[in-house]
């Protein structure tokens, strides 16, 4: 298990490094001089030279990469081209908003989707299963930005129950929570159906296994059999799915953050791309990638903890 942990951590770091290289070379593949692109066509040659020296653009590319990686390891992701604020600070300010959105979105999707899938699997081909199926397909099919706009129109504009934009007053958790409801709803909705379908399929498979019949033959109560035995096994593929889903959500939040004007990572990336603020783009994408890899790693470790067969084969 320890060896496995180290192996996975090493592999994860290698992936992050590969992402850095790709991000870095992307910047150099854009035609023209990065300094000119960054500063715009009307920048003076002195400004460009100053910028190039500051950004180590006068060094060979491999050296730039080494410098970047070296800085990144110590937590320095460079500075904003315009404001000259450290990118790390900018990301950290916004990370909380994005993470709370991702967790809230996935959280409510899991809390609703997993039991729905269980119910559908326990009573297959009944009206309950049928309704779950319809809801699932509907929530998967409707794009989240559409849901966001409708939610805005109904709850913020029409009913005026919820605040429309922003992330809430700093320090006021109640206000921040109110601001979180609609974006989290929009972001997680598709996942409700997705998780319900997934859990239903794997529950149906597990419910047919001989060991479930054994549990019944020992007289265990139906709830114990379903949640204590069947779900225990059926949840394993779902954990992997949720882990991967986090990655998808980190990019899906871009929509929600733009529509609800939440100052999250997604909005930061979007704004910086528009403004050609490449150090910020680089840093934000790197952090998002690292987070994604971290979540996948955690989900794999979680599976190893829940499934002794996996644990012993490591």
């Amino acid at each position, binding site marked *: 298990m320890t060896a496995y942990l180290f192996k996975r951590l090493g592999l994860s770091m290698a992936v992050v490094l590969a992402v850095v290289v790709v991000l870095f070379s992307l910047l150099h593949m854009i035609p023209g001089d990065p300094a000119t692109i960054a500063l715009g066509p009307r920048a003076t040659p002195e400004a460009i030279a100053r910028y190039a020296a500051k950004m180590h653009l006068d060094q060979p590319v491999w050296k730039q990469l080494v410098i970047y990686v070296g800085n990144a390891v110590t937590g320095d992701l460079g500075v904003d081209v315009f404001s000259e604020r450290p990118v790390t600070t900018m990301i950290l300010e916004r990370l909380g908003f994005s993470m709370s959105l991702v967790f809230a979105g996935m959280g409510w999707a899991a809390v609703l989707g997993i039991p729905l899938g269980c119910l559908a699997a326990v009573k297959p081909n009944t009206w309950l299963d049928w309704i779950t199926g319809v809801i699932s397909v509907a929530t998967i099919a409707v794009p989240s930005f559409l849901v966001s706009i409708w939610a805005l129109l109904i709850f913020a504009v029409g009913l005026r129950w919820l605040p429309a934009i922003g992330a809430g007053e700093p320090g006021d958790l109640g206000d921040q929570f109110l601001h979180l409801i609609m974006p989290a709803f929009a972001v997680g909705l598709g996942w409700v159906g997705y998780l319900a379908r997934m859990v239903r399929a794997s529950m149906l498979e597990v419910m047919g296994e*001989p*060991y479930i019949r054994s549990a019944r*033959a020992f*007289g265990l109560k139906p709830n114990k059999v379903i949640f*204590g035995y069947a779900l225990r096994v059926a949840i394993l593929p779902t954990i992997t799915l949720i882990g991967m889903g986090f990655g998808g959500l980190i990019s899906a939040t871009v929509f929600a953050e733009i529509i609800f004007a939440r100052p999250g990572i997604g909005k930061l990336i979007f704004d910086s791309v528009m403004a050609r603020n490449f150090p910020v783009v680089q840093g934000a994408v790197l952090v998002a990638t690292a987070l994604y890899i971290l979540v996948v790693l955690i989900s794999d470790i979680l599976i190893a903890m829940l499934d002794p067969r996996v644990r012993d084969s490591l």
Partner: protein
Amino acid sequence: MDTLLDIRNLSLDFRTTRGRVKALRDISFPVRKGRIIGIVGESGSGKSTILWSIMGLLAGNAEVTGGEILFEDRNMLTLSESSRRAARGEEISVVFQDPMTSQIPVLTYARQMFDILYRRPNLSRAQKREAAIDMMRRVGIPDPEARVDQYPHQFSGGMRQRAGIAMALLTGPKLLLADEPTTALDVTMEAQIIHLLQGLQSEFGATIVVVSHNLGLIAELCDDVVVMYAGEVIEAGEVHDIFHHARHPYTRALLECDPARVEKVTRRLPVIPGDIPDLTRPRKGCIYSPRCQRAMPTCHDVDPPTAATAPGQFARCHLLEGPHADPTWPPPASVLTVGRGTEDLPPRPDPAGTPLLDVRDLNVRFRTMGPIRARLRGIDDPFVDAVLDVSLSVRPGETVGLVGESGSGKTTLGRTILNLLRSEAGTATFEGQDIRNMPESRFKPLRRDMAMMFQDPVGSLSPRKSVRALITEPLLIHGITGRDLDVEAERLADMVRLPKPFLTRYPHELSGGQARRVGVARALALNPKLIIADEPTAGLDVSVQGEILNLMAELQAEHGLSYLIITHNLPVIRHIADRLAIMYLGRIVEQGPTGAIFANPLHPYTQALVEGVPKPDPDRRRKHVSISGEVPSLLRRPPGCDFATRCPYVQDRCRVEKPPHFDAPAGRQHACLFPLTHN
């Protein structure tokens, strides 16, 4: 004697897309308290369905159409679900068929047993744990204090089944149901489990119902026997009566078909012609009449009478009672009532001359861990020897049996011979040509001469291909053109006696025996010289098994085939193999002519195997188990003789010195420092 469970006129249908399958029809038999009762029958006879009816755990499409199941004074069929649940696991418990799949993989035994005891709120957690440990000790699991916290996959097959029995007995049930409790186990394990069940029965005084197709198990374990055929009880009685004075023609035929009961070695095993009837059709007359050797016109029209000799002892047959009774039936045991197929086989060609296949000192190793991890853990040799110093030859026209328990390396050896695995050392020649680790491009033409019959008859056939496509596939793979594939398909179907209409069917529409025939046809498609058959009769019923083996013998006589048969089924291999090689932990421990090996085994392991098979004769029950323990892991190969850890005759020298292969008279070889002598 008191009746604990009384099944009366139970009838049950399964609703399927093909119509209602009348799976059980008018089943009646009592289960007396303190007895072990065996329900015996072939697949599709409904024997397991009875168990699940008692438990109230039938599939959703099952519908009880009549009758009652009285447990003590309660009718289990009309009881509410919650009262039934109260009886399950508490008063009635089950030992399951396959301990590999019937125990939840993600919970420890302690946790599973804790859950079973949930109805005992007055027991503390520690007391429940103590009860679990105690029960594991009583079923013979060593070191139960530690093992109770392990997961099922950390147990070997035999230990898992012991744990399964421990779980079933934990609550002290009045009735224990066992569904094919040894089918998934090896011979030596099977003997131990039978012994354990017998011991526990006398210790706990429980009543046991065993469902099995294995006549040996039934004869050795049971007091009473119920014989089922196609959803009906056709005969019931005490075990001696059933095995020695069977009154129903089917019981008689079933016993005669069991290779273990055919004393004289024969190349032609008795068979029951025909198939189990289609249970969706309404039955008229006796259900067995279409296959019965003694069927009379009445049998096809009139329901047979129930000829009872005592309460709970009866047979349903026109020969026994009524106007058509035949006082000469049943004939004495020496008279064979079923046929052995057609004419006798021509005498065997004398297997001599140069071997077709010759394997010398073959060694196959598997890597157990990556080189880095091995280095980190300081292991110099991260390999196990799956096959070690194996020498084996097959001559033209000869049948060689390769016998061993699971994990003995017999399948690995077969796959290595077919060049599907790389070998580490040794030689392997086929028709004088060195084939060991030959590149696939050069080996491919040889695959025409060496065919494989796979273990799982249905699973080894692609479900998306028709029988016609399946049996002509080898021709396409080897690019053999210029032949009409339809003609070829019909020729091959003819060879394996598969009726023409089957060519358009798909594997899921075939019975086990028919799928096996398709497997034989595929193996024969390219006119091979050698067929390597991996467990050719596994999963087949006794009556069908004989047909497949007879077919293989006929084909051998017609085409001069050689067989290398990989099996753990000793009663069968005794009849069909000319020579045997017994494998243990990847080594051949004994080799020689089949008759001599069965008559006087030289290696203690061979003796354990030969004696390990339960005899289908209740008068020849064993008093003791000839061999204890389990096959050690390849990772922990004993330093001396591989068998030293389990050998009843072990001496100090055996534990340190690895015995080489010794030659013995009459073309025999063994690997034992102190071979058995037979006076």
